[in-house]
């Protein structure tokens, strides 16, 4: 565990899981799953379809309550730290959280409104950065699936939360977009942020940690 004087603040785990176990529809998804998410790391959750990758991410985000074990946030049990955790965590689900009737700018504005005040210029810059220049004021239902996903991803260019939980973010994104996201994640880790991703895409990143789900769950 954390030894005073030994580990600097940077090496204190943001998120720590001990003996996580989850059952779904009478099927054991994983058990005895323990891991730590340290600042400055990228962790990939691996496993075949139906192995519980999304479920694990939803448990970490606090969206799923059907689990047992221990979760701690910055060394303290998650239960008492919920508000601090929500302030410092960004979750992108496989449902992108985009309203199809609103434009990308309006969507981003609504998503950021609850987290940090952002000027519209910054939002437009972020959308430009995800390759949506010229589409900022088009209703999202007129955009392709990949473009809608990019609207959600534009949040990553503004977000300053230290922990990102990203579920299947590469879905419907083209090759150059994937490379850009990989670069972004790497830059994020270099800045001291922590990223947890689930993806079937073969990430080309050095120092990638992995959590393998499947028959035998282990770090």
């Amino acid at each position, binding site marked *: 565990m954390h030894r005073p004087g030994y580990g600097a603040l940077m090496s204190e785990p943001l998120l720590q899981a001990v003996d996580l176990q989850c059952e779904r529809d009478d099927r054991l998804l994983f058990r005895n799953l323990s891991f730590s998410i340290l600042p400055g790391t990228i962790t990939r959750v691996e496993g075949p379809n139906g192995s519980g990758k999304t479920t694990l991410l939803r448990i970490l*985000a*606090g*969206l*799923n*309550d*059907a689990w047992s074990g221990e979760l701690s946030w910055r060394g303290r049990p998650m239960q008492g730290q919920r*508000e*601090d955790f*929500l*302030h*410092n*965590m960004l*979750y992108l*689900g*496989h*449902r*992108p*959280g*985009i*309203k*199809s*009737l*609103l434009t990308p700018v*309006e969507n981003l504005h*609504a*998503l950021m*409104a*609850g*987290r*940090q*005040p952002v000027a519209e210029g910054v939002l437009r810059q972020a959308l430009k950065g995800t390759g949506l220049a010229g589409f900022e004021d088009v*209703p999202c239902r007129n955009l392709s699936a990949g473009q809608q996903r990019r609207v959600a991803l534009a949040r990553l260019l503004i977000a*300053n*939360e*230290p922990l990102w939980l990203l579920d299947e973010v590469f879905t419907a994104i083209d090759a150059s977009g994937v490379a850009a996201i990989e670069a972004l994640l790497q830059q994020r880790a270099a800045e*001291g*942020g922590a990223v947890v991703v689930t993806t079937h895409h073969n990430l080309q990143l050095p120092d990638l940690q992995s959590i393998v789900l499947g028959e035998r769950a282990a770090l």
Partner: protein
Amino acid sequence: MNTGPGVGTFHAMKAVFTRDLKVAFRQRQDLLNPLLFFVIVVTLFPLGVSPEVSFLQEAGAGILWVAALLSVLLSLDHLFRHDFDDGTLEQLVLQPQPLFLLVLAKTLAHWVLTGLPLVLLTPVLGVMVHLNGNSIAVLCLTLLIGTPVLSLIGSIGAALTLGLRSAGVLLSLLIIPLYIPVLIFGTGSVAAATDGASVSAYLALMAAFLALAVTLAPFAATAALKISLSNG
């Protein structure tokens, strides 16, 4: 890194409220549905039962109240459904502000979009069913106090049935029993007004319903939302 207090709760509630209004006004036909239903039900009664003035004066307030209740009930399924499907509900739950206040903001938006237009339309339909001026005023007042209660109680049912594929029937069965007291006192106060009796006791009771619903329903709806999301 971000450890500051972030956005104020009131600001976040306002953002939720304005976003819901914006989305609704991009889809105006959905907005008109409950209103149209309300008008159609009320106009069908004189045609289907009796156009007699004496009948309409007696039954008018009840007809309007029942039509308003059903039209709110019909619109409830949309309260969280679209947000659940496109993932915005997850993002709402993960906002750092107290969730019950954000849910309250969403419910308030629902009332502004369904209940309030019904109240505004009531004087016209009241004249149509031959209610006198005083009765119409009392009817509007009871609907003004009563429809937010319908939205608030309904938010609990809508949140509970979110994970289900066909939630409509179950939602009605869950919610209708809780609507009955509001209906009884709503129509009761108009009957009292028509008889020339004092309505203040009725209105005070309805206001008590509203106070109870505002303070309790968002908590119940929040708990129900978390359960539905946990299974989704």
